């Protein structure tokens, strides 16, 4: 099994799709010579040329819209929005157009487009370069939403997203690009809507996304030392959501923690907690804990930044709170 970084895994999925399929192309700001602001598309210009690795002007709305228009014509564009914060600029096209064309036309068209974007704190980018907005898109019928946390997952999920006939909003996390992991020799598509159990456990289920998957795995190890057995599950696809897997896990452990980097209030964890309390009400021995960023914009100074976003210890404390809760 080859080892790839998360960054390379994204690139590999894009490149392999482009090799086998003329309809796939990528577009975005500075993705050509520069290889994207995160280096994800590095070298792709050389292989595929400027027609299929298209630098765009700074026009988030038009680049998203152009991708939608090409998708309706049967192509499979992958549009990169450099930072999640700039999804606010593309929101009209993604939310009112891509998500709704199929529906409003009564099924006449499909919109096989992927919007890749990334964000995340931890390097003092400040308040306008690190928001985690996945919850917004989960609220929009017609979109699928993916947030992958490992090289293997990001490759297999991106592949499935490219070949899905629906618009997919695909979240990557800046601090994950460098992490490495083994991936299958050949790309194995990972079906959208299937959660991944990263670690089995008996006492509490931690449901985490993105960077928090790794924090949660570390927290689980810590907890293990205290004799607490933690199951860690990554939904991977936030929409459609693998409710069955999440509920099954919680019915087994009877306790749940939901963790993500986005602010807790109205974050994705709210939806997960709502689903769990509804479907596993009689199984729950403690309230569902939510771990997320504190309710502030992201501050610049590292000490404040680290205080705002959640880490291993926040997950661990949540685990302690829930297992220490008498039922």
């Amino acid at each position, binding site marked *: 099994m080859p080892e790839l970084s998360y960054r390379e895994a994204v690139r590999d999925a894009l490149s392999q799709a482009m090799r086998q399929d003329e309809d796939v192309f990528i577009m975005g700001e500075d993705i050509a010579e520069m290889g994207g602001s995160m280096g994800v598309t590095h070298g792709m210009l050389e292989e595929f040329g400027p027609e299929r690795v298209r630098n765009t002007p700074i026009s988030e709305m038009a680049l998203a819209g152009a*991708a939608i228009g090409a998708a309706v014509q049967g192509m499979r564009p992958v549009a990169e929005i450099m930072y999640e914060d700039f999804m606010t600029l593309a929101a009209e096209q993604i939310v009112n157009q891509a998500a709704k064309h199929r*529906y409003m036309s*009564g*099924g006449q*068209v499909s919109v096989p487009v992927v919007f890749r974007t990334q964000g995340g704190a931890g390097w003092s980018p400040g308040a306008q370069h690190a928001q985690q907005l996945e919850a917004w898109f989960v609220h929009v*019928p017609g979109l699928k939403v993916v947030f992958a946390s490992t090289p293997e997952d990001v490759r297999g999920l991106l592949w499935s997203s490219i070949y899905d006939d629906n618009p997919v909003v695909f979240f990557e996390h800046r601090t994950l690009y460098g992490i490495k992991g083994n991936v299958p020799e050949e790309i194995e598509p990972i079906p959208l809507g299937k959660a991944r159990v990263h670690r089995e456990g008996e006492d509490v289920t931690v449901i985490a996304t993105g960077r928090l998957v790794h924090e949660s795995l570390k927290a689980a190890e810590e907890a293990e030392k205290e004799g607490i057995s933690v199951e860690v599950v990554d939904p991977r696809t936030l929409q459609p959501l693998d409710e069955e897997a999440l509920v099954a896990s919680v019915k087994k452990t009877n306790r749940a923690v939901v963790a993500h980097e986005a602010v807790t209030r109205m974050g994705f964890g709210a939806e997960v907690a709502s689903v769990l309390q509804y479907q596993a009400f009689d199984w729950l021995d403690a309230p569902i804990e939510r771990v997320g960023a504190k309710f502030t914009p992201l501050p610049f100074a590292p000490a404040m930044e680290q205080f705002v976003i959640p880490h291993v210890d926040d997950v661990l404390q949540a685990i302690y709170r829930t297992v220490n809760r008498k039922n």
Partner: protein
Amino acid sequence: MAKVEEKKASLRKDELKDVLREMLLIRRFEEKVEERFRAGELPGFLHVAIGQEACAVGVCRALGDGDVIASTHRAHGHTLAKGTHPNELMAELYGKTEGCSHGYGGSMHLYDVQHGNLGANAVVGGGLPQITGAALAFQLRGEPRVAVAFFGDGATSIGTFHEALNLAQLWKVPAVFVLEDNKWAESTPESQHSPIRDLSDRAKAFGMKSVKVDGQDVEAVYKTARQALEHARSGKGPVFMHVDCVRLHGHYIGDPQVYRNKDEARELAETRDPITLLRTKLEVSDEEFEEMDAEVTEIVEASVEFAKNGTDPAPEDALKNVYA
């Protein structure tokens, strides 16, 4: 680039009669829509294009078979001109499964993909970047097709317009951007929404070829559209087609137009009605015109019958078509 049958530079007299008939059909259709809306039969939010028929018909006549359009909230005329049967359009306005969007869309979301209508858009400017994208797909595939966006004067203030046209020109995609300049954005006159008096100047920001035409003269619209399409199709880049036209009725059906001088609309109706203008030019006799009118009126009446006899979607059909 593959060959495509370019439309001829101008229309014969018999063809112009057909154009007149088509404009009249749209007019009668729109009047019927107003009537049925006022009778409380039509749900939703409707905008008619009475006075602007020449733009829809002139442009759509000039299109080749594979060409596509994106329309606006004022979409009935474009939709009919692009080939959707009046029955299917009327059925959509009644929310029936036989409608061109199967009852999911409504007046502001008319689709007929088979006929190259990629959809009306209830968001001002919303369709423009997608036309750039459709044209990009044609360019990438080497298909000799053109993508055409309709939009109003009000739409030229929105960022979407700027980004979409800029991108289209940068990439020289085969697109034509048709500005239907009726001098109003809802209740807001052009002087209150645009700092410039000639919206053709908008194209200068992109260095886009721009052409201007009297939108009440359907022949002129056709000819100009044909040239614009040829330009775009031949790989020379997109064209900004500025169509000077008039909105004879309110912004939406039921609009009391408190903001508008009543004489203005009356005078426009008398002097700038595109149907009267063509009829006069072609010297169509009263008799012939009445015959034509009776014919299209019958089609329109039939469309209402068709629509009323259509099938209401089952409530739970709402759950379909969310995902492919």
